[in-house]
């Protein structure tokens, strides 16, 4: 990693907080979750990211600790957004911590009314077999004109402008190796 771990805050909130009243009782921000959050942030790993929503390309700083994202906010050094965010950008924490995220491979059989779970080890060969069956059944080495085309119109692909560049390139490589010509993504819809 190119990153160095940086201190998120210069001083301890606990010190600052208690010093304020001089009255011996804790103020709101230094009690309960806020104090814990502060402690976590101070010990957190910081990574840089770019927002996955629109194409402005705003920078964000991700604080993570113990394998969990604990805070995401605008990257103040980023020249476009300069630390700011829109409502979607401000909500990124809930993308990284969301009980509705998919974590399990699911399969819906023909005519079924429910999903069933599969392991990755089960699903990948099943999909590969279906790719081969569809490709072999529809592959054209030459077209009606007699020209070499080496393609299949029996498989289509949609996606994705949400992938990284490296994934986009790899994906088009995979698709074009299979012979797909129905290759489309969000640029058109």
């Amino acid at each position: 990693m190119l990153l160095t771990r940086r201190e998120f805050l210069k001083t301890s909130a606990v010190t600052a907080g208690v010093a304020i009243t001089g009255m011996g009782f804790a103020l709101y921000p230094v009690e309960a979750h806020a104090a814990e959050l502060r402690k976590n942030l101070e010990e957190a790993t910081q990574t840089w990211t770019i927002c996955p929503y629109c194409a402005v390309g705003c920078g964000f700083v991700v604080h993570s600790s113990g394998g969990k994202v604990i805070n995401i906010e605008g990257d103040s050094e980023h020249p476009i957004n300069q630390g700011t965010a829109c409502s979607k950008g401000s909500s990124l924490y809930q993308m990284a911590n969301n009980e509705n995220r998919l974590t399990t491979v699911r399969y819906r059989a023909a005519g079924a009314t429910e999903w069933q779970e599969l392991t990755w080890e089960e699903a990948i060969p099943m999909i590969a077999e279906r790719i081969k069956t569809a490709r072999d059944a529809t592959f054209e080495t030459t077209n009606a004109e007699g020209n070499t085309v080496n393609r299949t119109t029996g498989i289509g692909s949609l996606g994705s402008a949400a992938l990284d560049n490296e994934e986009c390139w790899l994906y088009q490589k995979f698709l074009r190796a299979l012979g797909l010509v129905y290759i489309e993504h969000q640029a058109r819809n």
Partner: protein
Amino acid sequence: MAQEIIAPGPSNGKSYLCDTTKCIACRSCQVACKQWNELDTVHTTNRGTYENPHDLAWCCWALIRFKETERPDGTLAWDFLRNSCRHCIDAPCKQAAEHEGSITIDAETGAVIFNEGTKDESYSKIRLACPFDNPRQGPDGRLYKCVMCYDRVHNGELPACVKACPTDALTFGDRDEILATAEARLEEVKADGFPNATILDKRDVRLLLLLADPASYYILSTREG
């Protein structure tokens, strides 16, 4: 009360300026507040407006209000205004509190802070005392509202909402500087075709609201909404 408001230090405490002429109602401030303060979600419905939630809540400390008004010249004003604790210099909520330390003023920033002890206060009394109707009671009995992200501020960071604001409609800093900025900006806005522009309650609060249109074009608090 054993301790009165601590006189602001040399910096005269902190203040916000909410320049409504720059607000695009993206509501990043609403979400950034929730993100930093780990606030729950309010279940909402669409009531025929973009504005949501319909009210401040124990877990919604900042709320952008939307109001449409046709100006006399026929143009349309769609004015956005932030509702949240204004952090009064002489906070009526604190004065209404009956238990020592339930509501305090942070000496360094001037932030009005609701503490654990607010659960022993009369919710209705504290809420009625607020000129802007901001306090809300949580399921734990405590009272909640904006805390000026003062954990961040004490560590040299901006409040979460201010940092997130894309158009600098929200700015934050030493009160004297913010007051000067606000006055200068007011003159610009007046010169830009809004001669009736105003800054609301600037002597009395730490969240200054700069309005271009007449105050009736905005929803200033829940009581009006």
